[in-house]
């Protein structure tokens, strides 16, 4: 019974954290930007009218509310069904994982909307002047070698641990995990290369802000890699030591940690009062 209570608390926390708390913070931030940096004073910030921004914000808000309702329905279904199961059984272990993926959809849509805004900004940018720094952007300028080595060690630890508990047999389950690991790290490596040498998405962004954004993005990817390895190690341990009932708990914790590092970290690292909004004024050139 206690494991069910623990799950309710964690799943409730997952719903509130990812679909209520952080979306509310993001919406407050959008409102703050529109209020403090209006289109009249900062026209380059708005390649589209503010009405469209407000409409996108409302869609984002609505989507999160729907997800919260779905979350509560899932808790109710879980409560109804879990009474039939023994506490040591594996039950609905994929629930936080599947629901977590759904919870991230509004954030992904918001990101895509951001990319679209940057594209429109680049299209509207008529400046013939272009600026670039003469300092190379290198990985270890943004993240400590210790963090990168720790991430590599954790991946290696997971591989060794999983092979060890499977008596060094390459099971299909292990190969699927390897494939997922490669896919996730391939994405991280690609994004890191893009941050270091890729095109500037926001044509007006001040170089200091870009440096800060690059630093935060790379650091959060390294931390996500570490948590992913820990999550996989915990998953394998659960299977090996027959702690099936723990899987649902681990899955929920994993999604919340990712939200704390990814979304929470972005909100903490990118503070509005530290962003140079002067670059979006009509009479300014790109810094």
């Amino acid at each position, binding site marked *: 019974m206690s494991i069910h209570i623990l799950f309710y608390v964690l799943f409730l926390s997952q719903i509130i954290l990812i679909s209520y708390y952080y979306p509310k913070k993001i919406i407050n931030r959008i409102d703050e930007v529109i209020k403090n940096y209006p289109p009249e004073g900062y026209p380059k910030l708005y390649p589209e009218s503010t009405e469209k921004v407000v409409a996108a914000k409302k869609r984002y808000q609505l989507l999160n509310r729907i997800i919260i309702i779905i979350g509560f329905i899932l808790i109710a279904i879980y409560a109804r069904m879990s009474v039939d199961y023994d506490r040591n059984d594996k039950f609905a272990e994929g629930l936080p994982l599947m629901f977590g993926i759904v919870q991230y959809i509004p954030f992904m849509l918001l990101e895509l909307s951001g990319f679209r805004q940057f594209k429109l900004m680049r299209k509207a940018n008529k400046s013939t*002047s*272009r600026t*670039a*720094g003469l300092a*190379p952007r290198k990985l270890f300028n943004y993240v400590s070698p210790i963090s990168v080595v720790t991430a590599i060690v954790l991946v290696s630890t997971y591989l060794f641990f999983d092979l060890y508990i499977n008596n060094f047999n390459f099971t299909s389950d292990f190969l699927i995990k390897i494939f997922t690991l490669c896919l996730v790290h391939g994405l991280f490596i690609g994004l890191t290369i893009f941050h270091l*040498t890729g095109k500037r998405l926001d044509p007006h962004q001040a170089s200091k802000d870009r440096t800060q954004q690059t630093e935060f993005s790379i650091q959060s990817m390294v931390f996500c890699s570490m948590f992913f390895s820990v999550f996989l190690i915990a998953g394998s341990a659960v299977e090996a030591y027959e702690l099936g009932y723990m899987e649902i708990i681990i899955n929920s914790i994993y999604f919340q940690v990712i939200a704390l590092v990814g979304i929470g970290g972005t909100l903490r690292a990118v503070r509005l009062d530290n962003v140079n909004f002067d670059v979006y004024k009509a009479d300014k050139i790109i810094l």
Partner: protein
Amino acid sequence: MEITIDIEDPMPLFTQIVEQIKSAIVSNKIKPGDSLPSIRQLANDLELNSKTVAKAYKLLERDLVIQSKGYRGTFVHPDALMNSKIDMNGEVLAQLNQAITACKSAGVTDSEIRIAFTHAMNSNNK
């Protein structure tokens, strides 16, 4: 340290990059041994074709202003300060003007001078 180029300036883009890097060295904003961004990074930051930046880097390397160290990257040459100060363009222009004036005084036409110049350049490059 930042460089700024103007895509509508009549001066070729690669020349703008060369001039600005030399100017940064002369004004001590970047020093011998300092590393420079990769061709890809600079091209993406300036929204230029990487061939343009590669051409600028090639010219700077030829003039011993920068040096490429393979996978380690591109660095400011130890003699960059001295090599950036010499205005070869002015010297070359003065020599050519002198030669053209001499040719014209001797009655050589413009097209004959151009053909002779191209021929001289081609034979020197062989």
